[in-house]
């Protein structure tokens, strides 16, 4: 008698699936700490691709116009070995790796956000396969680039031939951006942020352009601290000072010149991003580093290029991270070296190294949490780094009022050291940096539906459809003009509810706090970039508010970007955006021949291409 192989009564469905990936990318070689097994949520109905609930890997190569056969991760031969082994020549391993790393990143965000990740709505037609999912093209095209394209709701990973450089590799080799752990996390983060704050892809200032890039780099870098083996290696080779850029060789070179690989100093993989990509481009260094140059308060004034500005943001967060780590591990060093001896790299006691690794991992996870949670407290449009600092302080105070370990203090310090100054804030004290609490709620006669938003939202989450969504928005806003004004919106422009999400937070006392985060947007369309020459292009000027609404329908925070506002705040914002677009229009390399269009010329892809 045949028995069903997969009898659920006998074998409970596993929680996780184990898959192998590169910790960094193939350039770090076959060393054990570069091979990593990661655990992603187990999806029972996983289709070949892999195509799951949230993401769909579609291996179509648009340059060579062909498919590569999709991997079936449920094949026993693959399941039994914990996923395919890392290989550059097997496209199915590439598919496995992008799936695994994207899912890992999604899991990380869901953990911090306390809810499922939602992708930004996408206009593509109904017959599109894998509709509703984030589509991933691991070999999308021949191009030294990888990018998130919101119009296709897809991640595209390019491949290219490295530029031959005799000092690195004498022959040109194919480089796959989909095999870089960092690049995958980076691009996935773009897609996730786009789902949380859809308007952030519209650049309205140097900061807003840099925010997406910087945040994506922060997530990619922080992910490194969950790789235990690499972390231990780095801790040994830096004597616990994991922020150092160089690793001490395993063995000391005779006469100073290294003769074998183990005698050579290496760069610290933990603080650099996309190493193989950077080298393949002939830069002889990783694409970007966590810590570049010493902090200078004038940096924010001088630097305008999005990646360079994003790098300052990254450096600020990592400065705080390493400071907290060093602070938290001082006692361990004192215990291990009570007589104040210098720590000798490669000779740390294994127990000490383990404890340091734990601290680094915990600290990184905490910083990652703080950054991700801050997103819900960010304004809906026109983000400035200063706004992010305020969001971060506000969000973290809600869950950890005392800041015992000094995370917030370190972050505030490092932002200040780089000249990131929130507008309209008089000091860097936590009280001034926190968003002002909103007092009172709208009169119930005017917006009775604020109370019902909770039920509506539940209903919407279980039966998502556009009609229901429209009704929620109408319920929320149609009758509340006066209240709208009170929370900082302009009566002159239509109010549109961009998103509504549930927020679950464990309070310091252990109780669960539930709130709704609502983004409302107002738009002034077609504002000319050059007032006297409307033909030279226009932009949409947006304002709005992020509202945190309690279970009782009370608005607790209204984080506003005003359209008008008192003291002409709105006007000031508009002028600043206009300045930004004027500079962009004038500096565009295409300017002499093609009319400037902020929507296309300031996209992710265009920025990478350097127009």
């Amino acid at each position, binding site marked *: 008698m045949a028995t069903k192989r997969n009898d659920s009564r006998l074998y409970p469905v596993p929680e996780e699936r184990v898959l192998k990936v590169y910790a960094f990318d193939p350039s770090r070689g076959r060393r054990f700490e570069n091979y990593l097994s990661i655990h992603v949520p187990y999806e029972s109905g996983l289709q070949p691709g892999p195509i799951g609930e949230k993401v769909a890997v579609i291996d179509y190569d648009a340059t060579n116009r062909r498919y*590569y056969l999709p991997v079936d991760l449920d094949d026993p031969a693959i399941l039994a070995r914990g996923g395919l082994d890392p290989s550059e020549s097997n*496209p199915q391993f590439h598919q496995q790796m992008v799936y695994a790393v994207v899912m890992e990143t999604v899991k990380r965000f869901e953990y911090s956000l306390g809810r499922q990740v939602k992708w930004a709505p996408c206009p593509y037609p109904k017959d599109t396969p894998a509709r509703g999912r984030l589509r991933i093209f691991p070999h999308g095209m021949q191009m030294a680039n990888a990018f998130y394209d919101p119009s296709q709701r897809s991640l595209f990973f390019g491949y290219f031939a490295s530029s031959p450089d005799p000092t690195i590799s004498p022959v040109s080799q194919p480089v796959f951006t989909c095999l870089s752990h960092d690049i995958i996390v980076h691009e996935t983060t773009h897609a996730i942020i786009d789902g949380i704050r859809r308007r952030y892809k519209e650049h309205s200032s140097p900061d807003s352009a840099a925010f997406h890039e910087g945040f994506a780099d922060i997530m990619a870098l922080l992910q490194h601290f969950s790789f235990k083996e690499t972390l231990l290696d780095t801790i040994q080779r830096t004597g616990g000072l994991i922020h150092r850029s160089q690793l001490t060789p395993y063995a000391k070179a005779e006469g100073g010149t290294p003769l074998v690989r183990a005698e050579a100093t290496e760069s610290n993989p933990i603080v650099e991003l996309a190493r193989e990509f950077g080298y393949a481009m002939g830069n002889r260094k990783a694409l970007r580093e966590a810590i570049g140059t010493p902090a200078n308060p004038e940096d924010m004034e001088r630097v305008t290029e999005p990646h360079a500005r994003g790098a300052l943001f990254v450096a600020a967060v990592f400065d705080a991270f390493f400071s907290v780590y060093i602070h938290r591990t001082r006692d361990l060093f004192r215990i291990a070296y009570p007589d104040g001896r210098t720590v000798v790299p490669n000779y740390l006691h294994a127990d000490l190294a383990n404890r340091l690794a734990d601290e680094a991992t915990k600290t990184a996870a905490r910083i990652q949490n703080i950054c991700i949670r801050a997103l819900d407290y960010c304004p809906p449009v026109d983000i400035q780094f200063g706004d992010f600092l305020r969001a971060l302080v506000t969000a973290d105070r809600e869950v950890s009022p005392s800041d015992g370990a000094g995370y917030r203090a370190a972050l505030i310090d490092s932002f200040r050291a780089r000249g990131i100054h929130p507008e309209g804030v008089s000091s860097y004290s936590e009280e001034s940096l926190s968003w002002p609490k909103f007092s009172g709620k709208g009169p119930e006669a005017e917006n009775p539906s604020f109370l019902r938003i909770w039920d509506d939202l539940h209903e919407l989450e279980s039966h998502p459809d556009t009609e229901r969504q429209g009704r929620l928005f109408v319920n929320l806003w149609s009758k509340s003009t006066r209240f709208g004004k009170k929370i900082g919106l302009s009566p002159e422009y239509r109010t549109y509810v961009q998103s509504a999400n549930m927020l679950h937070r464990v309070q310091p006392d252990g109780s669960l706090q539930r709130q709704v985060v609502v983004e409302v947007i107002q738009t002034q369309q077609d504002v000319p970039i050059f007032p006297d020459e409307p033909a030279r292009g226009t932009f949409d000027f947006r304002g709005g508010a992020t509202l945190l609404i309690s279970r009782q329908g009370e608005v607790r925070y209204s984080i506003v970007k005003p359209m008008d506002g008192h003291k002409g705040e709105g006007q000031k914002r508009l002028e600043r955006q206009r300045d930004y677009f004027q500079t962009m229009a004038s500096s565009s390399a295409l300017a*002499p021949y093609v009319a400037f269009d902020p929507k296309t010329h300031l996209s992710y892809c265009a920025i990478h291409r*350097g127009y």
Partner: protein
Amino acid sequence: MPEKKNEIRIRMYRVGFGDCFLLSLGAAEKQHILVDFGVHQSGKIGTLDRVMSQIEQDTGKRLALIVASHAHADHVSGFADYADRFTQFDIGEVWLPWTENLEDDDAKALRKQQLALCEALQMHLAVSGPKAYANYAAAMATLMNLSDDAPAMVALREGFGDRDRVKYLTAGEPPRRLAGIPGLSIDVLAPSRESKFLGRMTPPAEQRFLTARGSSTTMPDLFERQWVSETGLLGARQKSALHELAAVPADLLAFTLDNVMNNTSLVLLFHYHQKTLLFPGDAQWGNWQSWITQDDAKDILAEVDFLKVAHHGSHNATPRDVVSWLPKNKFAVMVPTQEEPFDSIPRMPLLRSLETQSGRALVRSDSIVVPKAPKGPKLAKLPKGFKRGELWFDCTIKV
């Protein structure tokens, strides 16, 4: 006979789409400086021969200085076409931007990248055909303008028979003087060597991997045959959307390349006794930024008596701030331009604002009528200090 007054005469020749300026300084015995001499392959009007003869006549074959602002054919092609005749000249010095110095490692690297990208783009566009790109013709024209400069640059680097005449200039060096022209000093405002501006002269890095179908850089056999499949999930419409995304924006890249080349332009500020002349080559945004962000830039511009308009009056070649900092009604403007081959050049709002700021002291080279050549606006009345010749406009400034 009355004593001749000391003056500067700036003569702008009508060459088509290109630049050619002759500065003549002094009283009776004039000294001459030639700034650029070239025409765009797609903007020729057949006057170059006559202009060459005119230059010989105007200078008596004596040139204290030849300046080639940057390596685009529309500024240098004449130096190749008439190289033999220039070797007959008595030439003092030849000036080029440091980016053309083949003994400079940074310059060599820049040049190599530019030419490699130019070649790849030309090949790519040629294979793809005019239907593949919206801006095909304009893109091809800008590429040709770069690749056509080679013989002229060879002649210039050789100094027309004497390499020692050739000087490579860098922003910020001490003011230069010329033997035999007392009262003249020249500031070099650009190109800068500072690393943050080098980027503005470097083609986008990613595009070094640019491919043309069928060229050796394609990667058709990425994986072994066993992994390849002709069928999959996507429908025809979705595939074509992806093909579009994967297509190289070769036309836009050609414009980017044009821009980085223009940003290597030598920007010279001539001081002759109390008068100041600004020749910015084809400087575009990045080049201007390298010096107008400095503290004294506003003061420099407030003193300008004459401006040669950069890049034929195109969109981002004269920053708005620069126009507003020029002294109202106190300077003269010359625009070497023509409405062919680019629809978007010259940019009329820019020319109008310069006309207003200068108090209508502006002329365009294409206002000189040449049979069968594109016609510029008619000039009813010449501005004060200007004169018209058969093939040129003169602007005379008394010193």
